[in-house]
């Protein structure tokens, strides 16, 4: 098996898990108990598939934006259904809107594309760095902006407070707030 070490694995090891055990982001989704179809009749095709999977499929292909070309409306709707079928934690937000205080434009991102908070922050940094007045937004200390999100219940939380799994299943939208406003949120936690 190819070694495919990613930051998410490291992060996951050290994370306190509050969610249901056994929900593993990197695991292939093919343990799904899809409704029984007559796939059994095309036995040869199935065998070919298994062979192919072992020989050539990379461990976890990087997700490609917008592929397969299914509209997010349909994709989100069925994502919820899939979660119900597989009896997993409900997969709520996939594409979420991201706004930044002071920036006139909203963006939309797919949370499924990122493996953890680090990647998410990187992506948001590169997406919005042109808008921050001081140029480089330092992640290490004295951040001028703080990342917050609105969860399923309508509450605004700091990004990073909860385990990644829980975050992506409950995040409805993201907002990059000015640092002084975010302090109120932080002290609440």
């Amino acid at each position, binding site marked *: 098996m190819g070694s495919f070490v990613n930051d998410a694995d490291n992060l996951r090891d050290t994370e306190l898990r509050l969610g249901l055990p056994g929900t593993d982001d990197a695991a292939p989704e093919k343990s799904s108990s899809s409704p029984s179809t*007559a796939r059994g009749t095309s036995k040869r*095709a199935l065998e070919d598939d298994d062979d192919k999977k072992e020989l050539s499929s990379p461990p976890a292909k990087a997700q490609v934006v917008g592929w397969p070309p299914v509209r997010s409306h349909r994709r989100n709707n069925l994502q919820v259904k899939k979660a119900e079928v597989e009896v997993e934690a409900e997969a709520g937000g996939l594409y979420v809107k991201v706004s930044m205080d002071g920036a006139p434009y909203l963006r*939309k991102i797919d949370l499924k594309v990122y493996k953890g908070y680090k990647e998410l922050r990187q992506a948001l940094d590169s*997406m919005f760095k042109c808008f921050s007045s001081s140029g480089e937004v330092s992640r290490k200390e004295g951040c001028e902006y703080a990342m917050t999100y609105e969860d399923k219940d309508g509450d605004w939380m700091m990004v990073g407070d909860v385990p990644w799994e829980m975050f992506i299943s409950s995040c409805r939208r993201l907002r990059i707030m000015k640092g002084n406003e975010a302090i109120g949120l932080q002290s609440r936690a």
Partner: protein
Amino acid sequence: MTEEDGGDGEENKDVEARWWPPEAADGGRLGEGPSGSGAGGGGGGGVLADAPPPFSDQVLENVLENVLQFLGCRRDRNAASLVCRSWYRAEALTRSELFVGNCYAVSPARALGRFRRARALVLKGRPRFADFNLIPIDWGALFSPWLTAMVVTHPWLERVCLKRMTVSDDDLALLARSFPSFRDLTLICCDGFGTPGLAAFAEHCRNLRVLDLIENDLEDEVDEDVADWISRFPETITCLESLSFECVDFPVNFAALEALVARSPSLRRLRVNQHVSLGQLRRLIARAPHLTHLGTGSFRLELVPGGAGDLNAADLEAAFLASNSLICLSGFREIAPEYLPAIYPVCVNLVSLNLSYAVITAEQLRPVILQCHNLQTFWVLDTVGDEGLRAVAKTCKNLHELRVFPFDATEESEGSVSDIGLVAISGGCRKLHSILYFCQRMTNAAVLTMSKNCQDLVVFRLCIMGRHRPDHVTGESMDEGFGAIVMNCKKLTRLAVSGLLTDKVFEYIANYGKSVRTLSVAFAGNSDLSLKYVLEGCHNLQKLEIRDSPFGDAGLLSGIHHYYNMRFLWMSSCKLSLGGCNEVARRLPHLVVEVIGNFPNELDSDTVHKLYLYRSLEGPRDDAPPYVRTL
């Protein structure tokens, strides 16, 4: 049937010329000012302002107008407008529906100035790949400028249809208030508005007949801000004929909805969202027994304990039995399959059935589909598998359009339908015009079989979800299969390719796909030759969208002779550079060449990530966001 990506179907739609105003013969035609080529489809060349024609000519023009009013199809009208100035003027005054395929191709002032008596506006904005998150949501395509212009110039406006445009709540309010005759609003894949806008619209639009909201992306609102828009329709008897709100994903005030249906005697099309339960649906059907189109909402029982109680399946079936006008069914958003038999009474009359949100198996589908002898349009989830498609093929001999959507829309998914299902369909549904098929396993042989059996194919869109997947039996590329399609299906105007593909397939498309107008390419081809073939060979090509394919500047430049004939070209994640794009912009001054970056700094690099170019009479637009540069 809802118009989820109607593609070329919309282009060919004939338009009835309605309500030609009796006073049109006289006056008002002086000094129309310089007007350029036609809006949207490409009309005449520049026509200069001139003095009013002499009297005898005026008589002729009156006669002409009387005749031209009957001309419906916009392509015919464009042709008529090119005959001479007289015809140009007469046609402009008798065009009742203004279709603008790219809202940036022409300015509101120019288009509205030419077609002064238009009563309907159809506008399309963003390119289709915006649906797949390839364009940030604030890219543009605002309805506002068109709206504010029409408030002044076209107070008689009756109908608006927008696709992939941004419409604000304020726009909706202004729309409802400014046009006393307004009656039809259709929004497809739009965004920018929410329930407050709908509320304002419902309240102020007194003569509303059609409100169709299809696949729109409504603004998320916290619960307190969600407006009870259904309650805002006028209290009196309404003229509502069609109400579709499947995409409005907020709970709806059911009592208000039921009351609205009860006081809308002309209602024939009702499509509710998934927050309407089966019990509630039954009540709605009872209120509106003459419905022709029904969107069934969740199609499951109340989830709230102590809700409507159990709904007797027999009661539901009786309700459907009484609805003997139903020809189109959709919804089934959270289907409780045990209630599906309730629709048996209407199956034989169904022309259109959309089960694409219903997670059902072949066994659950079979008893339904075996009764749908008259079905022409069928949308379904791949959970029904090849077996389910066999059942479709067995019964639906008049099927014109089939769409098979993936339950699991990821690359690594198992995929439940395959070449077997495709062959079955092609064997049974010989009259197929249009197919969209998502799968993971396909063979050239199956595609070839379809190309031979279904010679009437106009739209062929095959999406093999795993990238670069070859024929799963032979291991070869899918070139031959798609090649067969373009060779054998002479009426083909729209094609989407997928799977492992080399330059060869594009050579086939160029040589045989002479009628192709829309081509979608992803993860395909080996070199610039592919693009060169297509741009040089497909003389009727109007819309070309390409992603993640190794095409560079040489390929791009080979289309310079053709770009003015196209509506647009989209290329993302290819191998383009600023140099090539600049060259195109330099040589084609009436082309708007937009380079889109993920953030503005990206625009300085030589690599072009996303290119969107389109012909326009107006030059660069003034509402482009910072991450778009127009060359």
